[in-house]
């Protein structure tokens, strides 16, 4: 800093000196000085000159001058010049100045510093002082700065003062205080937990402004846990009703709409509350209807409200009447000439279309128009919409549209996103024909270039390598790929992205033998040409060399390859060099060559049995988990968790690439029964008066483009031609020429129109058939955030009792408490029920009955029982201990658990005088672990632990053996060690479905995984049934139906989340296809299926 000061002192422009010479200059002067600063800065090029100009000269200055200089510093910072030297002065100004200077000081601080800046600590005292000031403005300023920027550690210091402000007499102060508290909640939620009821007070504030401010907090809170705020639904509905009804003062009107921002906020809150909750949703139907009705005035802001209203209606539990009205409103948006509204309309459609594809049908012509819109944002949004309605029939048209857009788009972000989507579509749908697939992938590779996600080429290669059901088709696909790449290599390759070249070389290396009459030497030569290009990266060179090594079967090719490779044997890059040296070695050693490169074995890619679950790493993973490492999450889950913060999955780019890993191992191309069911349905819908037509589709205004033989381009053309004719006939002769020209323009219009219609018909194929199920079963778009819901004990008295017990018990069972706290990975997911062992049995027994033996455990036990006081005796002397566990202990289960499915009682561990046993009881919504601690002469108590089984559990269990319970138990002098790990099947419950329901659900689920599993026992007659039974037994699945060689099964997690399985056997393999609304469930379940099949 000192050199800066020095520099400043020597090179200080006259402008600052002049400031020195006129202390107390008038405001006008100050502005002009800022003006000249501005001018000088614009004339300057060097950065540090900017610094010098704003630098206050060394020497004392009055706060007033400091104020002027500070504004200058702010200006410099805004332009990007570093002005860090002024930070400390900003703080000083805030500390020492009068109100006016303070204001500038605070402003500068909040613009310059960030929350963890050290200098901020110097401000804390000032803020404290100002918060206590009697001057309203000072308080306001302090609150503002607190809400913009405040160090986290210092929150406790100001918190009580800010809290006090909630009861301040001025509403502006209360309002700012509420927002400041909200900010505190955002940065340190646990520190403001105790003032939640004050938030409620703020919500009920008599000033609507304060209430509005408090909604920020509630929106956040409800987003985090909607369950705990259901009771407020009524209040929010009432508030909204009053606002909509115009009960607020006129001040709050904006363009004669009452408090629009407040309405939007409320609607958003209602959406969160009503999501998947019929009862709560019912409370808000009326007010939503009212909101829809009121939003009639044609102003931007009413549309804003309307849009929020639509979102809410489609998020909460559906009501057909409202949905109908909402659909009409969406029409208003989509058909609006205002482009902003059109954009929002498309967004709304994108969201809604999953539930109600008919809407897309209604607006098909508008959608087509939007596809050619001049605004790329609109175009992209339209493509997003099309992406959502893609099915097997329209996939090629939609993909083509997307590729067209991609070719024009320059934006990297768009490219990455869309390329991922195209690749996903191309792989997901059974391709119309193989060459289409190869062409599409080629287009993706050349457009996506090196920015696309790396798993796209990987998946593609895997798909090629692993193949499908029929060998013939595999061969054809590979041959097509080889052909297209060979022809690509003949042209100029300099423009091709590296990734694409890598794919090309791999495919050629692997499959070029399939092409008859193609000499490997030829291929080597062509690949060699690639290497001549200097722009090619080392990584690609490695790929090319690797491909060459594979082609070295013939001596001719070998000779050429060696020549190329020789260049690289002295290359600096180790990977490339190794590749080259390996190739050379291969060339020298004939034996080795014949061994690694057997001539034309059918299918180079020999089936390798790979342990895809990586079970050999289980030990390592569980070790890591035990050491406290976080369980692994696959990338798409991570991405999803990020995007799930949002209310709706409205964002088109949130889930940019949920390319499921195994989607590429499409070894089974046959659709499962459910799918074929639906395709036959959609086949029907192509029938004449159209199922869709009779289906109450609102097709008025929409030209029917479907006929018995598919869509009707020709027929319409003739119809339209007929329609034209009369006009020309009736045209008076002297107007003939004129009308002719008119007619030509008309006919070109008609032609364009025609094209659009054709496009529409090809785009919206097969949409009408799925409407019915989707309306009812709303697909759960984002639900996994709610996995951690606690399992609530139903009976409140039960809770009390168990609480009492556990607290009174804590004395002797601290070890147990520790165990309970630590053992379960996520404490929030667990609810403890510590209950005295079968109360009925115990009531008659008392502690006198305890044989007075000098045994430590018994002493412990009686202590326990006396501690437990009125809550029921815990210890129970038992004379039956010597009896078998199986017969005795289960009877101690409480009545609620008796009838349920349970596992055998297993002894977990035992010491000299104590033993611990447990059994698992499968309750409908939880796994209850009943634990019996048994002493030599008594059963001490039973302990029940409800696991709220969530996906996390299933998942972590999928990665490694779940940690389960593992703890040393110290009770008195006896010490026990035990561990329990709940098996996967604990999380699953059979889901009884009919085949029809299954079909509906199958279509509505978005996440799927496919995999082939090797069936080990080939000799079995009915492999499918054996496999199904094994799965059923091991994983508690429900077999829905078996149709020929296909079987369908269903299960649900204890949390009620379903997963559907489709199995299909062929040639010793079991092709499993899983679908679920939750992203990770199929992956996890697949792992367990695999294990179950292997263990069989």
């Amino acid at each position, binding site marked *: 800093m000192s050199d800066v000061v020095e520099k400043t002192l020597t090179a200080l422009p006259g402008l600052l000196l002049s400031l020195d010479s006129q202390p107390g200059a008038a405001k006008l002067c100050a502005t002009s000085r800022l003006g000249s600063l501005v001018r000088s800065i614009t004339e300057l090029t060097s950065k540090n000159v900017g610094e010098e100009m704003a630098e206050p000269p060394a020497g004392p200055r009055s706060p007033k001058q400091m104020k002027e200089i500070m504004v200058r510093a702010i200006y410099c910072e805004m332009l990007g010049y570093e002005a860090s030297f002024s930070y400390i002065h900003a703080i000083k100004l805030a500390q020492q100045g009068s109100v006016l200077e303070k204001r500038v000081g605070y402003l500068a601080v909040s613009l310059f510093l960030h929350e963890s800046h050290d200098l901020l600590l110097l401000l804390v005292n000032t803020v404290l002082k100002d918060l206590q000031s009697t001057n309203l403005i000072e308080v306001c300023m302090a609150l503002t700065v607190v809400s913009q920027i405040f160090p986290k550690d210092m929150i406790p210091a100001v918190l009580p003062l800010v809290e006090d402000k909630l009861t301040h007499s001025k509403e502006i102060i209360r309002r700012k205080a509420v927002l400041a508290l909200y900010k505190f909640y955002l940065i340190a939620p646990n520190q403001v937990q105790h003032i939640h009821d004050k938030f409620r007070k703020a919500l009920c504030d008599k000033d609507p402004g304060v209430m509005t401010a408090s909604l920020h907090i509630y929106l956040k809170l409800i987003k985090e846990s909607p369950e705990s705020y259901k009771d407020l639904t009524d209040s929010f509905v009432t508030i909204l009703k009053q606002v909509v009804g115009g009960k607020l003062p006129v001040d709050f009107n904006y363009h004669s709409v009452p408090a629009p921002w407040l309405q939007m906020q409320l609607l958003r809150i209602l959406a969160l509350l009503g999501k998947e909750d019929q009862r709560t949703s019912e409370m808000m139907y009326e007010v939503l209807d009212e909101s829809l009705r009121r939003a009639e005035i044609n102003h931007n802001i009413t549309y*804003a409200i309307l849009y929020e209203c639509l979102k809410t209606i489609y998020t909460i539990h559906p009501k057909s009447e409202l949905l109908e009205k909402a659909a009409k409103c969406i029409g208003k948006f989509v058909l609006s000439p205002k482009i902003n509204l059109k954009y929002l309309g498309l967004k709304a459609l994108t969201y809604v279309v999953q539930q109600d594809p008919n809407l897309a049908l209604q607006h098909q012509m508008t959608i087509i128009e939007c596809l050619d819109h001049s605004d790329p944002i609109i175009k992209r949004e339209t493509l997003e919409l099309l992406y959502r309605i893609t099915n097997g029939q329209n996939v090629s048209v939609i993909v083509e549209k997307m590729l067209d857009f991609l070719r024009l788009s320059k934006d990297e972000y768009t490219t990455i996103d869309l390329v991922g989507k195209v690749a996903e579509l191309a792989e997901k749908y059974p391709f119309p024909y193989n060459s289409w697939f190869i062409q599409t992938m080629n287009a993706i590779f050349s457009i996506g270039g090196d920015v696309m996600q790396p798993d796209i080429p990987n998946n593609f290669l895997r798909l090629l390598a692993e193949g499908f059901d029929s060998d013939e088709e595999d061969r054809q696909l590979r041959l097509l790929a080889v052909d297209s790449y060979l022809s690509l290599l003949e042209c100029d390759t300099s423009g091709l992205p590296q990734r694409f070249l890598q794919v090309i070389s791999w495919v050629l290396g692997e499959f070029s033998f399939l092409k008859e009459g193609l000499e490997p030497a030829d291929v080597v030569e062509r690949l060699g040409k690639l290497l001549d290009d200097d722009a090619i990266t080392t990584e690609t060179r490695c790929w090319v060399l690797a491909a060459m090594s594979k082609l070295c079967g013939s001596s001719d090719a070998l000779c050429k390859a060696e020549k190329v490779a020789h260049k690289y044997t002295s290359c600096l890059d180790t990977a490339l060099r190794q590749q080259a040296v390996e190739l050379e070695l291969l060339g020298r050693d004939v034996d080795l060559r014949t061994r690694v490169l057997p001539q034309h074995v059918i299918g180079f890619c020999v089936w390798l049995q790979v342990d895809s679950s990586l079970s050999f790493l289980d030990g390592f993973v569980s070790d890591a988990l035990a050491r406290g490492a976080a369980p692994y999450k696959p990338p798409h889950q991570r991405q999803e968790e990020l995007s799930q913060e949002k209310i709706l999955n409205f964002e088109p780019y949130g889930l940019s690439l949920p390319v499921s890993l195994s989607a590429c191992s499409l070894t089974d191309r046959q659709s499962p029964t459910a799918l074929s069911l639906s395709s036959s349905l959609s086949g029907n819908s192509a029938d004449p008066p159209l199922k869709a037509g009779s289906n109450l589709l609102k097709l008025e205004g929409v030209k029917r483009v479907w006929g018995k033989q598919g869509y009707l381009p020709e027929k319409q053309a003739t119809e339209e031609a007929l329609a034209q004719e009369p006009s020309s006939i009736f045209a008076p002769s002297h107007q003939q020429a004129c009308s002719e020209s008119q007619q030509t323009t008309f006919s070109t219009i008609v032609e364009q129109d025609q094209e659009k219609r054709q496009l529409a018909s090809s785009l919206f194929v097969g949409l009408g058939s799925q409407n019915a199920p989707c309306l009812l079963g709303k697909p759960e778009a984002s639900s996994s955030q709610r996995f951690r819901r606690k399992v609530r004990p139903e009976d409140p008295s039960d809770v009390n009792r168990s609480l009492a017990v556990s607290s009174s018990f804590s004395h002797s069972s601290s070890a147990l408490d520790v165990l309970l706290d630590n053992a379960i990975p996520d404490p929030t997911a667990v609810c403890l029920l510590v209950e005295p062992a079968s109360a009925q049995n115990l009531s008659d027994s008392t502690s006198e009955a305890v044989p007075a033996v000098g045994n430590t455990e018994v002493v412990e036990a009686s202590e326990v029982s006396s501690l437990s006081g009125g809550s029921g005796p815990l210890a129970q002397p038992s004379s039956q201990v010597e009896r078998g566990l199986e017969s005795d202990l289960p009877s101690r289960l409480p009545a609620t658990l008796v009838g349920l499915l349970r596992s055998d009682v297993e002894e977990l561990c035992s010491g000299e005088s104590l033993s611990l046993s447990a059994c698992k009881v499968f309750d409908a919504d939880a796994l209850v672990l009943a634990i019996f601690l048994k002493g030599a002469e008594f059963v001490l108590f039973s302990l029940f632990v409800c696991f709220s089984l969530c996906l996390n559990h299933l998942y972590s269990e999928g990665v490694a053996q779940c940690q389960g319970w593992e703890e040393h138990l110290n009770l008195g002098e006896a010490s026990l060690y035990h561990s329990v790990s709940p098996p996967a099947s604990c999380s699953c419950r059979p889901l009884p479905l009919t085949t029809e329901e299954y079909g509906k659900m199958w279509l509505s689920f978005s996440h799927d995984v496919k995999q082939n599993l090797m069936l080990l026992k080939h000799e079995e007659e009915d492999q499918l049934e054996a496999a199904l039974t094994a799965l059923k037994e091991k994983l508690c699945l429900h077999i829905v139906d078996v149709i020929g060689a296909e079987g369908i099964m269903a299960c649900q997690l204890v949390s009620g989340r379903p997963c559907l399985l489709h199995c299909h056997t062929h040639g010793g393999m079991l092709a499993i296809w899983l679908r679920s609304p939750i992203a990770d469930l199929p992956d996890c379940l697949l792992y367990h299926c695999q294990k179950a099949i292997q263990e069989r």
Partner: protein
Amino acid sequence: MIKAILIFNNHGKPRLIRFYQYFAEDMQQQIIRETFHLVSKRDDNVCNFLEGGSLIGGSDYKLIYRHYATLYFVFCVDSSESELGILDLIQVFVETLDKCFENVCELDLIFHMDKVHYILQEVVMGGMVLETNMNEIVAQVELQNRMEKSEFVFISRM
């Protein structure tokens, strides 16, 4: 939540920058440049919303902007804000500026940068919309201005 408010002119010169989420100095400048690049190439007859851009928050962020004469007003918000609502908020902000400066122009923003910031503070506080009523905002700002005119500490008991 509003992540940032940027005002720059037709040449991309920043006129007012307010970030509600911390970004390092050079990152801020980069965001301004990228935003200007995105916004400036759009015609006036296309929609006022933009998505993408990877700097602030990635996919979870939108740009909502309005173009007035020589100035672009850009609000960077996350997905929880309503597009149209923000669009009208910009309008309210600009109308307020117009009322406070009487025919506001780019120069006002340059020479009274601090005042613009004070007005903005009354509209948006810490990324949250505080007040949307123009009269209320103007009243608050005028209260502060009165204090400035009287040049002594104005203890308000209102």
